[in-house]
C-alpha cells in the first residue's frame, strides 16, 4: 500500500512538471498565432475592404497566382485532375488564382472538418450546411470569417440572392457563408405510386387533409398485400406553418409567441397512431435502414418528398416507376432552406478576398460552373443542344448544389428545358418566413439543449411513426423535458425573440 502511495505521489509530481512544461511550451507557440488569426479575422472586415478589387482579367501577370484550397463534401470524382487543370486555366486567367479541391468522403466530413478547424489548418473555403459541418455552430465558434464588408465588393454575387436570403444566412447579425443559388423554397409533399393510383382510381387532387389519406391507404392495404401504404409518418402535413428555431420550439409568426411543436401536431400524431395500428407502415418503420431497395422493389406505395420542379422525372429516374405528387403545405423560404448548402471562408484563410472572388467567379461564370459540375465535353458528356447534355457513364460528376449557382447548369435527360425557370418562379412566389433573420444564440442554455436533444431522439420517432399511445408518449415526453429544462429554454427563446423584434422596429 505504501509503495503504491509513493508511486502515486511521484506520478503526480511528474504529471505536474509535464503539465507545466506543456502549457508553457504550447502557450508560447500558440498565442501569437491566435492573436494573429483573431486580428486577421477582425481586420479583414475593416482594412481589407479598402483594397481595390482586381477587375476580371486586369491582374498583373508578374504576380504569382494565389493557391486556394476548397473543402468539398464529395469523394474524388473520376478524371478530377484533368477537369481541375482545365478549370484552373480559366480561374488563373480571370482572377490570377488556382483552385485545389480537397475531396472528403461524405461519411467523414464532420470529423475531418472538425479536426481541420481545431488544428487551425490554413484553408480557404469549405462547404458547410445546417445538416453537415454545422454552419451555425462553426460560425459561432469562430471558424469562419464574417463576409459582410467583403461582399460589398462583389455586387453581382450580392445581387444574386434576395436580401432576405442573405438575412437567413446571418449568424449573430453577420453573414458567414454564401448560400448556393438553387431551389430555396421548401415545400412538403407526398408521392404516390402511379400504377396503384390508376388501379384503385384514386384522385390525388381530392386529398386535402391528413385524414383524406386514410381511405386511400386502406384501399392499398386491402388490395395489395405486401405493399406498405406509406413509408413513415407525415404528422405535420397540412398543419399550419411554424418557423422552427431550436429543439422542438418554433415561432408562431402570427402572434410572435414561441410554441412547442408536438402540441400543434397532436391530431396528426393520433392519426399516425391509427395508421400504425391499421398496418399502413412497413413493420420495421423505425428501424428500416435500407429503404431504397424496398421502394425500388415496389413495396412502398407512398413517401414524403420535398416538392420542386422536375421532381416526378427525378423520382422516376431513381425509383424506376411513375409517381404522382400531392402537395401538403405551402412553399416557404426559411432559415433551414437557406442554410441547406453554403460555402464559407475560413478564419485562417490567408487570402479571404481572393477566396470570395473565386466563389463569385464560380457563381457567375457559366462555363466554369458547368466544367466543375459535369467535366469536360467529349470526355465526360456529349452536348445534345445548346443547354442540354448527356453524361457519359463512369465519368466526372460533382453535385452542383454544393459549390455554385444551379441556375447556370446545363439540363440533363429527363429534365424540362426550362426547369431552372420554373425553379425561379417557385423561389420568387414562395412565402418568406417572417422570422428568417432571427438567430437563436444557444450559449446560455447549451446544457439544457443537449439534454433535450437526447430526449427528443427517444420520443419523436415513436410519435411520428405511431409506435405507442400518443397521449401517454406526449405526457412522458413533456415530463422528462420539464426535468431537463424545457421551461428555461422556452423562456430564453421568447426573450431573445422579443429582443430581436424590438431591434427590428
Amino acid at each position, binding site marked *: 500500500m505504501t*509503495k*503504491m502511495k509513493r*508511486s*502515486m505521489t*511521484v*506520478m503526480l509530481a*511528474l504529471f505536474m512538471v509535464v503539465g507545466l512544461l506543456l502549457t508553457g511550451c504550447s502557450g508560447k507557440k500558440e498565442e501569437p498565432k491566435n492573436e494573429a488569426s483573431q486580428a486577421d479575422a477582425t481586420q479583414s472586415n475593416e482594412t481589407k475592404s479598402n483594397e481595390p478589387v482586381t477587375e476580371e482579367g486586369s491582374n498583373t501577370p508578374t504576380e504569382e497566382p494565389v493557391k486556394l484550397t476548397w473543402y468539398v463534401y464529395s*469523394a*474524388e470524382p473520376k478524371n478530377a485532375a484533368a477537369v481541375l487543370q482545365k478549370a484552373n486555366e480559366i480561374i488563373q486567367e480571370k482572377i490570377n488564382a488556382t483552385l485545389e479541391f*480537397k475531396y472528403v*468522403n*461524405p*461519411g*467523414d466530413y464532420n*470529423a*475531418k472538418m472538425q*479536426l481541420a478547424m*481545431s*488544428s487551425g489548418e490554413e484553408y480557404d473555403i469549405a462547404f458547410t450546411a445546417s445538416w453537415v459541418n454545422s454552419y451555425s455552430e462553426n460560425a459561432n465558434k469562430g471558424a469562419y470569417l464574417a463576409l459582410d464588408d467583403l461582399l460589398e465588393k462583389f455586387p453581382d454575387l450580392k445581387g444574386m440572392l434576395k436580401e432576405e436570403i442573405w438575412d437567413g444566412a446571418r449568424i449573430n447579425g453577420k453573414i458567414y457563408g454564401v448560400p448556393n443559388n438553387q431551389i430555396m423554397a421548401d415545400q412538403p409533399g407526398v408521392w404516390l405510386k402511379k400504377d396503384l393510383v390508376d388501379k384503385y382510381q384514386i384522385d390525388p387532387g381530392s386529398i386535402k387533409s391528413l385524414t383524406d389519406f386514410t381511405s386511400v391507404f386502406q384501399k392499398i392495404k386491402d388490395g395489395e398485400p405486401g405493399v406498405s401504404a406509406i413509408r413513415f409518418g407525415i404528422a405535420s402535413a397540412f398543419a399550419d406553418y411554424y418557423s422552427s428555431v431550436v429543439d422542438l420550439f418554433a415561432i408562431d409568426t402570427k402572434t410572435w409567441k414561441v410554441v412547442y411543436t408536438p402540441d400543434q401536431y397532436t391530431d396528426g400524431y393520433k392519426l399516425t397512431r391509427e395508421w400504425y395500428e391499421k398496418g399502413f407502415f412497413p413493420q420495421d418503420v423505425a428501424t428500416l435502414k*435500407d*429503404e*431504397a*431497395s*424496398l*421502394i*425500388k*422493389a415496389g*413495396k412502398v406505395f407512398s*413517401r414524403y*418528398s*420535398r416538392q*420542386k420542379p422536375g*421532381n416526378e422525372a*427525378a*423520382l422516376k*429516374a*431513381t425509383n*424506376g416507376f411513375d409517381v404522382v405528387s400531392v402537395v401538403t403545405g405551402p412553399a416557404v423560404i426559411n432559415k433551414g432552406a437557406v442554410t441547406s448548402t453554403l460555402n464559407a471562408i475560413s478564419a485562417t484563410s490567408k487570402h479571404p478576398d481572393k477566396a470570395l472572388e473565386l466563389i463569385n467567379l464560380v457563381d457567375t461564370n457559366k462555363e466554369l460552373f458547368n466544367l466543375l*459540375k*459535369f467535366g469536360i465535353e467529349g470526355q465526360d458528356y456529349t452536348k445534345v443542344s445548346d443547354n442540354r447534355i448527356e*453524361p*457519359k*457513364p*463512369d*465519368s466526372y*460528376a*460533382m*453535385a*452542383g*448544389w454544393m459549390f455554385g449557382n*444551379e441556375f447556370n447548369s446545363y439540363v*440533363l*435527360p*429527363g429534365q424540362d428545358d426550362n426547369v431552372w425557370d420554373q425553379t425561379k418562379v417557385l423561389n420568387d412566389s414562395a412565402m418568406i418566413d417572417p422570422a428568417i433573420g432571427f438567430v437563436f444564440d444557444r450559449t446560455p442554455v447549451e446544457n439544457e439543449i443537449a439534454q433535450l436533444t437526447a430526449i427528443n431522439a427517444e420520443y419523436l420517432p415513436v410519435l411520428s411513426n405511431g409506435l405507442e399511445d400518443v397521449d401517454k408518449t406526449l405526457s412522458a415526453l413533456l415530463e422528462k423535458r420539464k426535468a431537463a429544462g424545457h421551461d428555461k429554454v422556452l423562456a430564453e427563446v421568447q426573450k431573445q425573440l422579443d429582443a430581436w423584434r424590438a431591434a427590428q422596429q
Partner: protein
Amino acid sequence: MKRTADYSWSKLPIHLFFIAISVVFIVPLWSIISISLSKESDLVTVGYRLIPLNLDFQAYQYIFDNPLPILNAYKVTSIMSFAGTCLSVLMISMCAYALSRSDFKYRSIITFYLFFTTLFSGGLVPYYLLMTKVLHLQNSYAALIIPLLGSVWFVFLMRTFFQQLPDSLVESATLDGAGELRIYFTMIVPLSTPVMATVGLLQLLAYWNSWYQALLFIDKQELYPLQYLLQVMMSNIQEILRNMQENVPVDAGAAVQIPTESTRMAMCILAIGPMLFIFPFFQKYFAKGLTVGSVKG
C-alpha cells in the same frame, strides 16, 4: 504426444459441445456469404435466406469494378499490419518482461505510469495536433502504425504470462553471467511462444481491422488501408441512396442499381478472407510442451 488419444471416447461430450457451439458461429458466417451472393431484389422480396434464391455476383462485380485501388489497399494493409505487429510485439514484450521481474525496482511506478493512460486521454484534438503539426506524420505509414503500436493492455497481459515463469530460471542464468538482454532473447522469448503468438495474432488483427487512423491522417488514396477503402465505398453508396430518397438532386452518372446489403457483406468477406488463412499459421505456436523443462533439458 500420443496420436491414439485422438479418438478416445471419453472426449465425445466435449466434441459434441464444441460442435453445437460451432453451429452457432457458422450459421451467421454462412449467412454473410449467402447474402453477399444474393440478388439485391431477392433480399427485399423474399427476405434473407441461408441459400440464395438466385446466385448473383453483382456485389463483387461492383466492388471489383475498379480493382487497382482494392489491390493497392491490400498491399497497404499488409505492410502496415506486418511492420506494426513485429514492432509492437518487440516493444510490448521487452517492457512486459522487465515489469514481470519482481526484483525490478521501478516496476510499480512504471506499471502505474502505463496504466494511467489506459483510462485518461487528452482527446482527439491535441493528439491530432501532435501527429500533424509537431511530428508531421500525415500521409505516411508511420501515421497508420504508430497509434496502435504500444498497447498497454497487451503489456499487462504479457507481464502476467512472464510472471508465471519460475524465478529460478533467471537466477541461474544471472549466475552464469548472462546479461539481461541476452536472458530476454535467448531464454524468455523461446519459452513464451504461445503468448507471443497470441499477442502477435491479436495485434495483427487490430492492425488489419483498423481504419480510424486512416480517416484522421490519410488523404491520399494510395495509402488507404483495405478497411478504410471499403468503408469509404460503403458510405458513398449510402450517400447516393440517401440523396436519391431525400430528393437532393443526384447527378446522373451515379448508378441507379447499386447493391447495398450484398455489397456490405461481400466487403466483409473480402476483409476477413485473408485472415482466415493467416490464423492457422499462428495456431502452430499454440502448442503444448514448450515449457521450462523442454528448454532446460
